[in-house]
């Protein structure tokens, strides 16, 4: 379906990758809605996935008491709704992540504050 208009109605999208310092990555921690919404962060495509987890995630999610208790080997990753196995040694790009990719991670056994998924 397209927009009904009196004249051609076609404008450049506001959020193409070239307009950002780095491609955007959306990242959410399942069952920890104390962080009210997933995060949106520009992340250089060359960043190694392991560095993202060890280097950036603490800054995003460290304020939650459960974060320190995460067993990273048990973490289950989801990408656009599908189970997904990232390779910590490869870059985000080599893991198939691009501009505005969405990844979520589930931490079995940790269900947020008082088990309330917050």
């Amino acid at each position, binding site marked *: *379906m*397209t*927009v*009904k*208009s*009196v004249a051609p*109605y*076609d*404008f450049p*999208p*506001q*959020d*193409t990758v070239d*307009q*950002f*310092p780095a491609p*955007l990555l*959306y990242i*959410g921690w*399942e*069952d920890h*809605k*104390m*962080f*009210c*919404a*997933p*995060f*949106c*962060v*520009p992340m250089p495509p060359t960043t190694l996935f392991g560095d993202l987890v060890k280097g950036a995630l603490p*800054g*995003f999610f460290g*304020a939650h*008491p459960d974060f320190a208790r995460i067993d990273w080997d048990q973490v289950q990753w989801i990408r*656009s*709704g599908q189970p997904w196995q990232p390779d910590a040694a490869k870059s985000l790009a080599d893991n198939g992540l691009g*501009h*505005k*990719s*969405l990844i*979520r991670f589930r931490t079995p056994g940790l269900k*947020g*504050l*008082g*088990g*309330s*998924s*917050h």
Partner: protein
Amino acid sequence: MDMKASKKLSLKDRYNLMTRDLAWTPTYQAVQDVFPYTQYEGIKIHDWDQFEDPFRMTMDAYWKYQAEKERKLYAIIDAFTQNNGHLGVTDARYINALKLFLTGVTPLEYMAHRGFAHVGRQFPGAGPRVACLMQSVDEIRHAQTQIHSLSNYNKHYNGFQNWRHQHDRVWYLSVPKSFFDDAVTAGPFEFMVAIGFAFEYVLTNLLFVPFISGAAYNGDMGAMAFGFSAQSDESRHMTLGLEIIKFILEQDPDNLPIVQAWLDKWFWRGYRVLTLVAMMMDYMLPKRVMSWKEAWEVYAEQNGGALFNDLARYGVKVPKGWEQACKDKDHLSHQAWNTFYNYGAAAAFHTWVPSEADMKWLSEKYPDTFDQHYRPLWEHYAREQAEGRRFYNGTLPMLCQVCQVPMMFTEPDDPTKIAYRESDWRGNTYHFCSDGCKSIFDHEPEKYVQSWLPVHQIYQGNCFTADADPSQPDFDPLADVLRWYKLAFGQDNLDYADSQDKRNFEAWRSQATSN
């Protein structure tokens, strides 16, 4: 205004002579050139004179009654100002609901004014044209009476002073702004279904009861006065919205699917804007009128239900998102307040953890969900705050491409899971908070790829002050964005507990009541 001269003419006939009869079909210019915007939406109108304006107001009556209302309203505003009425409110936390109103709702009244001037020029039918122009002039009344009654609050409390600047820039205000931009940039018929019907009729009581009764319950006679006075205009607007949708549906069966798609879209987008209202009802009013859940059950499920079975004879079905909205009623306000608590450092009003008494009320009103899902969250925040670690979320959130609300909404049948939807279009991925927003995008992608998403604009570097130098090592981007918002750090934002508003309110109140 008694019309002795033409007593023999009925109100209806007299009105027709004074409105419909004034118009003529142009011959020196093509009708299509005088009214160029009535074809492209695909709506078919065969006879504009079938439109019935139940209020049939002529200008002399309009001036007479509206001036009388203005005299009464401004007398109350002056009295309220003269005796420091703001000190009579239950608690200065309430004033933060007014900040949200002035920065988020008042600018929409002005947009309605300009939108109705546009459709009030473009409709070929004399009846609808005049009714729309009267609404246009009513709407600037609402914008201006709100500015005037809140002007006194602006003198004494922080967060009102940059309402114009902030409505066009601050992250959460892009939700109401994009909503109305969407309606006014749509075609004239869609604008009428969106604002005249879906927003003014279906959802108006969900906006009216919280703000006006909320004001009355919290001792704010000023806001109550403009609310009641403005709401009497609303009854004309609601009626126009109802009459126009009946008129369109009666004109041609081909109009039904177009109107139904608009109803689905605009119920959902309007409902998404009401997220701010749900939060305000349950969390921002010290003396609560009713819960969002109760307001939804009375004004949406009962009243809305009566309306839609009244419209069923036209083939209209209840909007697609209706069921989900009914499921959300137990969660919406809590999730919204958590979002503003998270980002309290970037909001132009104060946030706070609900008190024990507040939470007792919330438990009673939300027996199935509050204690299990939300009490643990507030109690954690209270403990953290007590130990000097008041939580502020320092990373920017992902926004929905259509409603532009942070992705805080949960799955309709699993309130523990954030809802994610996405679509690919011309090689780019777009993300949404719900089936409702995704279908709005899929229906008109060329429109929503233009969205000015505040978080993305920050990352694109479009939200820094003119003299900012992002290359400097000590450059703090988020602090500069707040300067760009003209948000005075430590004064307009942060927790209510240590705010200047709280200190001033308590000092002034004791000054007014003790020696």
